[in-house]
């Protein structure tokens, strides 16, 4: 879709990290869990961060090679496929899940979920990670197809803020990446600027 009104992808993650070996220790409050694997394709990571970083590094390499061979920017589906191969073939050792999203010339904005065991699924919106269980109800109620950019950003920020309010291992700042045909924009929302709800 090349019109102005294609709804762009807004991907957000909250960035508290707790090191599994040291119980409930927050080792970093500001890491960015949105990794760029190509110009218009990003991956959100969840689960063991070491595994996730290793997989995305590998995928980035394979994807750049693929796009040189094809002599055109890769499809989002191709990127998701590469992640899925890596997750499925190494499913015993790895423990990371991904959301791959981006824009390509063929189908416009797309979102693919690559889950723990290696499932690949395309969805209009998706949530993941430990904090996601708390916001299933909220996103089911509030999501509308064909939202505008501002609405989508507001929706993501609200959902993340609610999840961070309930999940003890999510927190810190909110990273958002807006991907459109024209550009990629990275927005950071610090904790004190997050929306507040009734009990705060």
């Amino acid at each position: 879709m090349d019109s102005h009104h294609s709804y762009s992808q807004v991907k957000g993650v909250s960035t508290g990290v707790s090191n599994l070996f040291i119980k409930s220790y927050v080792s970093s409050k500001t890491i960015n869990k949105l990794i760029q694997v190509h110009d218009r394709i990003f991956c959100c990571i969840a689960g063991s961060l070491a595994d996730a970083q290793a997989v995305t590094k590998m995928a980035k390499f394979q994807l750049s090679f693929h796009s040189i061979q094809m002599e055109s920017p890769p499809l989002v589906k191709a990127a998701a496929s590469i992640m899925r191969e890596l997750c499925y073939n190494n499913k015993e050792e790895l423990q990371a899940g991904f959301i791959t999203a981006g824009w390509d010339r063929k189908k416009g904005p797309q979102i693919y979920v690559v889950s723990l065991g290696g499932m690949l699924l395309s969805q209009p919106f998706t949530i993941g990670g430990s904090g996601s269980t708390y916001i299933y109800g909220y996103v089911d109620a509030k999501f509308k197809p064909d939202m505008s950019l501002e609405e989508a950003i507001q929706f993501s920020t609200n959902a993340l803020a609610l999840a961070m309010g309930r999940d003890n291992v999510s927190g810190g700042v909110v990273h958002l990446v807006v991907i459109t045909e024209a550009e990629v924009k990275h927005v950071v929302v610090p904790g004190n600027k997050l929306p507040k709800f009734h009990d705060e």
Partner: protein
Amino acid sequence: MSEELFPEPEWLSEEVKTGTTIIAVTFDGGVVLGSDSRVSAGEAVVNRVMNKLSPLHDKIYCALSGSAADAQTIAEIVNYQLDVHRPRTQYHRTFNKDVILLTSPDDNVVVKQKKKQHLHEIGHILNAFEFDKAWDRTVLRKIKEKVPHDLSIEVEDDPLVCSAATLVKNISYKYKEELSAHLIVAGWDKKKGGQVYATLSGLLTSQPFAIGGSGSFYINGFVDAEYRKNMTKRECQEFVVNALTLAMGRDGSSGGVAYVVTIDKDGAEEKCVLGNELPKFFDQ
């Protein structure tokens, strides 16, 4: 040989749990309680239309979750104990009732002052009470020995929601190792209006709204975002039905129909919202 040919289904030996979604919300003038209706034993659904909202008194209800047997028993026991508040026609002439409950001093408990003083001194009046599951006869005998036989106590007013919640909490806390049930107690009383108390594992806390059960995890975000203070009765009922629908849509152990009870100063009103009447949300 017959066991090999027809193995017993697993669910016959699984504990029956009400994996569930329960919610109670205060509004301006009362409370609304809601629950789903699914009871599961392992993977099988053993009852798809169970009403998990149990009356404790005319204007106090509790919502059950966790192990079905434990939750129902606690609710029945507290219902029995609150019978001492049945208005006007019940007199307890001697302490042959196993439990004694008095609410706070400024409620209308008709006891002669001297007798009341005596009871306080011998230590048998508590705001809540000690309930002994094993019916310890020695304790009862000691109480009967010390208390004069002509004493009668008549409790005129309806119980406070706080008293009912305290009764539930006492049982949950005392037997917390053996029981696994979480009850939310909600109702209306003259003193403080509509109130909701959560009594998870023996804690007691008053909240503007409370959610519980396995399905409640999925709607934490939704209720945090959508709850407003001082909603009208209608808005509150819609809020409860929406929350239940969303939870039933995501949780495998919640489902069926939605039961909604609205309690205000005029009494309690029960309603059942069938599956096809529930609101629809975005679903692929």
